């Protein structure tokens, strides 16, 4: 009886909050002994092959895979650290702060260079540049901008073509968008000019990469700025209307990271899962995984890679964030 109540009590938060997920999936046998709960900001389709190979190896384990935005994910984990075993997110800053604040468990995981992990508790497993994705139709002359400066020029030249057809992250909502924006701002003043140009052209703000790409495909958008290249690539296979540009002035490259919750109820399975994920992502490149691998060789020199370091917390500071958003809003929402 007592156990029953306990069970209910532990289940209450999830039901009581009536958590709504962008996606929710379950992998593995019906009668699996244990269920690993993975909370992620990555779409299920990208992660399914990783999970499927894992449950194939460990038939006694089933995996529940929950997808939500990076900001939401950060909030959920902080509120209920024991509710999930593995936390996967593309918002490196939020993930690092989770680890810094003691939400991550220290693991012994092999096969990662030092720059790809932090405190043996936060592990990077992809290398993903922020891309500018463009609908080729918007550039009939085929002169597709290769840098931010060229993009600014193109937009200024043909404002009628781009007005209302430029998309970018709403950095107030998307953790990844905020990360890209702050890193861009840190890198160059060009970011602010670009943002102002986008604001003047009534740029549309999105929550996530997939939505922007959807609108690019339909032609509603001509340009999407700071989209995850991997998502665009996945679509490009079915449609060659899109052009993905990694801006050559300064690339911003993000790494997806995973951590195991310090209060995980099945830490060993969680650790095995992380190890499995890293083995896949650092292994041979042509494994047909939809997730881009961790670029172990090239990233060693990569200043463009956003480093896993405490400085990531800088823009998470309340005052800094307030300042940054104020400035960003005044740039992007002019005239709206």
């Amino acid at each position, binding site marked *: 009886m007592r156990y029953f109540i306990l069970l209910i009590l532990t289940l209450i938060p999830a039901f009581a909050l009536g958590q709504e997920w962008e996606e929710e999936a379950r992998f593995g046998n019906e009668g699996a002994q244990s269920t690993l709960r993975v909370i992620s900001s990555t779409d299920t389709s990208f992660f399914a092959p990783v999970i499927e190979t894992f449950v194939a190896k460990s038939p006694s384990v089933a995996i529940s895979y929950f997808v939500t935005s990076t900001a939401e994910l950060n909030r959920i984990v902080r509120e209920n650290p024991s509710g999930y075993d593995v936390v996967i997110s593309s918002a490196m800053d939020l993930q690092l702060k989770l680890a810094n604040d*003691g939400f991550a468990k220290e693991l012994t995981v092999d096969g990662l260079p030092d720059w790809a992990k932090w405190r043996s508790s936060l592990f990077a497993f992809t290398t993903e540049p922020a891309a500018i994705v463009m609908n080729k139709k918007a550039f009939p002359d085929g002169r597709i901008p290769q840098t931010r400066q060229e993009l600014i020029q193109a937009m200024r030249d043909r404002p009628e073509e781009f007005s209302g057809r430029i998309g970018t992250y709403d950095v107030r909502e998307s953790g990844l968008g905020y990360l890209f924006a702050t890193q861009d701002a840190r890198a160059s003043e060009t970011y602010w000019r670009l943002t102002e140009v986008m604001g003047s052209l009534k740029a549309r703000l999105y929550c996530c990469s997939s939505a922007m790409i959807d609108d690019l495909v339909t032609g509603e958008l001509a340009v999407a700025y700071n989209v995850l290249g991997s998502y665009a690539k996945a679509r490009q296979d079915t449609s060659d209307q899109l052009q993905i540009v990694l801006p050559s002035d300064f690339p911003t490259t993000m790494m997806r990271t995973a951590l195991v919750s310090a209060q995980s109820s099945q830490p060993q399975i969680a650790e095995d899962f992380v190890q499995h994920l890293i083995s896949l992502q650092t292994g041979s490149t042509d494994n047909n995984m939809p997730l881009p691998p961790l670029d172990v060789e090239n990233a060693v020199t990569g200043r463009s890679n956003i480093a896993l370091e405490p400085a990531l917390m800088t823009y998470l500071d309340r005052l800094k964030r307030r300042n940054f958003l104020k400035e960003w809003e005044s740039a992007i929402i002019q005239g709206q």
Partner: protein
Amino acid sequence: MNNRVGIIRSLRDRLAITLIGGAAVLAILLYLVVRSYAAQIAQQGQDSILAASVTSILDAAILRDGEVEVDFPYASFSMLSTDSDDRVFYAIYQDDELISGYDTLFHSDPIPDADHRFGTATLQNAEVRVASAARTLIGAQVTTVISVSVAQTQDALEVTLNRISRNAAGFGAGFFLLATALSFWATSTTIGPLKRLTSSVTRRGPQDLRPFEQPVPTEMEPLVASLNNLMGRLDQSLSQSEDFIAEAAHRVRTPLATVRSYAEATLQRVGKPENRHALRSMVKAIDESSRAAGQLLDHAMITFRADHLDKQDLDLGELVGELVRSLTPIAEMKDVRLQIRCPETVNVQGDAILLQNAIRNVIDNALKYSPAESDITISVSNSAEDRIAIRDEGPGFPENNMAMLADRFTRGSNSEGITGSGLGLTIAQDVVIAHGGHLVLANHAEGGACVTLSF
């Protein structure tokens, strides 16, 4: 003489233990000093970075329209990156109110515009080093104090310290080993002259009382000087007493010899029985006293020499042969034959002079009690139990006090009319005992005394 010396721990050991102990203490001290110094340096390193971080944040604080803005640079935290990925915490207070950062980080309330304050705290189960500083912001309407604390875990510091500790420990151990090796070397070098002196003392024969002339270290000079002094005095007193004894013997014996010669010569010319008797008594008395004097001196000499036997390899047969040759003229006067039985070569270790004296005394004794025209047999054998047996054909030892005969000044109850001091057998016994053996007196079944020297 008692040869045992009270022993306390050897100089070598003392020196070695002192030096090695000192080296160990120094090594440990070295380790502790290096480690604590390194810890201090490392801590200062971390502190200065924390301070720089705090300063960079504080410098970014401004008042705009009466509101505080702290637009601190990315470098404020990026400078805190370490190899061990130390965790970072920070807190920004306006007056006493947290405006950003971790509320779990205590508010250390630093004095505005003063130097940084450092401290250690526990935060989220981790030991952290905290740096704090404050600054007064003066605006148009308000004046406010901004205080900033930045904290960092000490994992990298720990790693550095462990590495330094290992190095310091290795350094200390190396120092200790080197010092130990040096101690052994120093010890043996220091003890060397002492050892050389000791071996040169031990190598010396018992009569060698020359001073030591090898150079010795200054510290040993008083010892060797007193030793030389002592030996000099000993040598002098020994030679003086030897000279004295010789002189005394000479002074006594020469007049005795004169008297004896005159008495003998007179005896040739005197006919009256009472005069002849007187003269004979005189001669006998002279013989007795000179013999006693000789034996007393011999005994004294033997007692002295018994402490340091001058042992050599001796052919016992040859030694006895020589002795018999020198005694033969006396034996012949009584027509007594001295016969040696020595079927094989007998080699022993012994003091030739003492052994000869001992055997001479026993043969002398046998000669005195032997009847005319009899034999004295001296057997030499290879068995330690009856090394030398001297048998005569005289009346034998009196059975009643045989056991006491070898005592000093004891004479046989049948010795009347025979000159003797009673020291002859004592001398023989002392010599044999000094050689680790014993003397046995017995009477032969077919008559005659038998003295066996075993050694």
